[in-house]
């Protein structure tokens, strides 16, 4: 999670190549197709941490599930170490299954309540790594200690006896048990207290430093993004609207949506309260009926006529940042500023004299 690692030049560990995923939904208007992810390409390098941010309904979790092969793309493909998941040999696919792991937000439902914590963590050690039960138990104890759960206390407990934060750490220990190369963390630390969250993030970072594990962090917490991500991808209604190094995107965002997310994030500083910052109005529209032109235009305080009609091209910056906004350069340079929450006035581009 070094701050200066840019996009990998060698072949990526895992990559989504132009993936889309549609769902059929039944509503008052009959069966309709919902495009949850729409033509997204995203590669994650070795020992790299990529964060995917966006509101509920942005498609970030659907994208994560395609990386995990929990959902098949409707079009496009996911490649692990250069091989399409669909074209893998049985043994390659089993290796993929072992080396790609996930930690979900809701661990209440992902741990078997009839198994002890120890046995949940031992299972992948025995099945995936072929350890004998005694070795597996010892390693499970190490893993639990690593995530800050005293093994002697927790090995024989049931998930039902644990708090949410404790179950979350068990899920992380279990994901790490298979000696993975890639972990998808889907809001994995959002529900944790600050101290536990930092402990867990540190465990993940150490794993990256020591074993070169890569992470896809799906999160809405921009503080976590800043702390751990090398690169960040911002999604809105199934599309990537901005991507770049975490520091570039968070310091000089080039898309109004990124700016709005940053403005909404609470800051631990009572002297800069959010009443002085811009706020998005309304909620994310339904992906069944995405707005024409730029999908963000219905909520964008900077939207102009062109945004309502024309899909914005991707603007590329020298530092690798990409932004799908007609006014990306103006947004990034600060020539185009976001109106404050109570400003009714329309935004305008100030021409440089």
């Amino acid at each position, binding site marked *: 999670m070094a701050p200066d690692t840019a996009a990998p030049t060698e072949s990526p560990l895992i990559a989504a190549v132009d993936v889309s995923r549609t769902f059929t939904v039944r509503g008052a208007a009959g069966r309709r197709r919902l495009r949850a992810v729409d033509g997204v390409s995203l590669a994650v390098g070795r020992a790299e941490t990529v964060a995917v941010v966006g509101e509920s309904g942005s498609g970030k979790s659907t994208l994560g599930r395609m990386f995990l092969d929990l959902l098949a793309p409707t079009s496009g493909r996911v490649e692990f170490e250069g091989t399409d998941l669909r074209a893998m040999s049985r043994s390659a696919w089993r290796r993929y299954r072992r080396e790609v792991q996930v930690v979900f937000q809701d661990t209440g439902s992902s741990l078997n309540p009839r198994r002890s914590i120890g046995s949940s963590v031992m299972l992948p050690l025995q099945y995936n790594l072929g350890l004998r039960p005694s070795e597996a138990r010892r390693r499970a104890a190490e893993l639990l*200690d690593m995530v800050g759960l005293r093994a002697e206390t927790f090995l024989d407990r049931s998930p039902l006896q644990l708090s949410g934060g404790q179950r979350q750490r068990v899920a992380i220990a279990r994901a790490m048990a298979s000696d993975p190369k890639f972990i998808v963390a889907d809001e994995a630390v959002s529900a944790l207290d600050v101290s536990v969250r930092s402990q867990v993030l540190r465990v993940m970072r150490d794993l990256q430093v020591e074993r070169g594990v890569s992470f896809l962090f799906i999160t809405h917490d921009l503080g976590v993004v800043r702390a751990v991500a090398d690169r960040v991808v911002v999604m809105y209604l199934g599309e990537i609207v901005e991507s770049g190094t975490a520091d570039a995107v968070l310091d000089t965002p080039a898309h109004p949506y990124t700016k709005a997310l940053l403005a909404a994030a*609470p800051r631990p500083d*009572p002297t800069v309260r959010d009443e002085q910052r811009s706020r998005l109005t309304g909620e994310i529209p339904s992906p069944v009926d995405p707005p024409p032109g730029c999908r963000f235009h219905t909520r964008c305080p900077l939207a102009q006529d062109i945004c309502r009609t024309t899909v914005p091209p991707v603007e590329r910056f020298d530092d690798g940042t990409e932004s799908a906004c007609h006014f990306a350069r103006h947004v990034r340079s600060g020539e185009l500023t976001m109106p404050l929450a109570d400003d009714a006035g329309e935004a305008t581009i100030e021409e440089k004299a």
Partner: protein
Amino acid sequence: MDPLLQITDLVVQAAGRRGPVNLVDGVTLQVRPGEIVGLVGESGCGKSMTASAIMQLFPTTAVSIAGGSIHLRDAGRLDAMSARELRAVRGARIGMIFQDPSTYLDPLMTIGRQVAEGLRSHGVAGDHRAAVARLLGQMGLPDPEQLLRRYPHELSGGQRQRVLIAAALALEPDLLIADEPTTALDVTVQSEILALLRDLRERMGLSILFITHDFGVVAEMCDRVYVMYAGRVAERRDIVDVFANPRHPYTIGLLRGTLSPSARPDELFAIPGAVPDPRSMPSGCRFNTRCPIAVDRCRAEQPPLVEVPGGAAACWRTDDPELATAWTDQPVPREVSDGA
């Protein structure tokens, strides 16, 4: 000005197999009219238990108030009230909202009926539709007339939380207890709900007791904050003071571990260890087992809350210059040994 809510030396006890256990142990807390007061700390510090004690809505019957008093202005001692008397206070004087709005909405009841239920149960007669629609509109919900006939599943998480705020405020209470009300929401929605709550304070003079573990939310919302640790108040401060110059090592540690999108932290700081089990509390200062500057006195004697600028802190070393650098001189504890 008289406080609206005055909690004094509150003790909340759970019956245990080996005798009673104090989950909240001598908490004194005030909420003044029109004030937003934060209650922060890690899970298991007793902040939700303290809030539950106000309306005696404990998760099980094994938990009860075992000492101290809870006084609501013009209502008297809530801790001494019967269930029936408390019901009259609930809703009319004190509203409540929680983390997961869907848990508190009946999926089979329309939004209009759920919000009106409080009015009906308090004997407000007549047709409530107009009043409820007006209330939903005040919560920033579009098409309130339409909304009356809709069901919870047709709403987004943010809309549901607005409906619950409307229901909590239907009888115009003067105190709102908000227990992690935005933790489950998107940041954009969170920011709108926080703005709504601040706005309601301005418009209605509402007081809010805001329970959260997020110091970012505290900074956005609160006038004052109580930091709880292991069932006690570790620090009570005005909002600017707690961020500028925290005076308890626990607060300093929590703030240091708070992640901000504005800057990459030098290291991922975490207070080592965990909140002690209420069944086996350390002697002396309860934080001494995790404190980097604990001395013998901290292990022997419980520190009282002593006055500091803008509030009070319960630490024997709160005036010690070493306090400010308590955590910075600490090597980051590592769970994984270096194999050295």
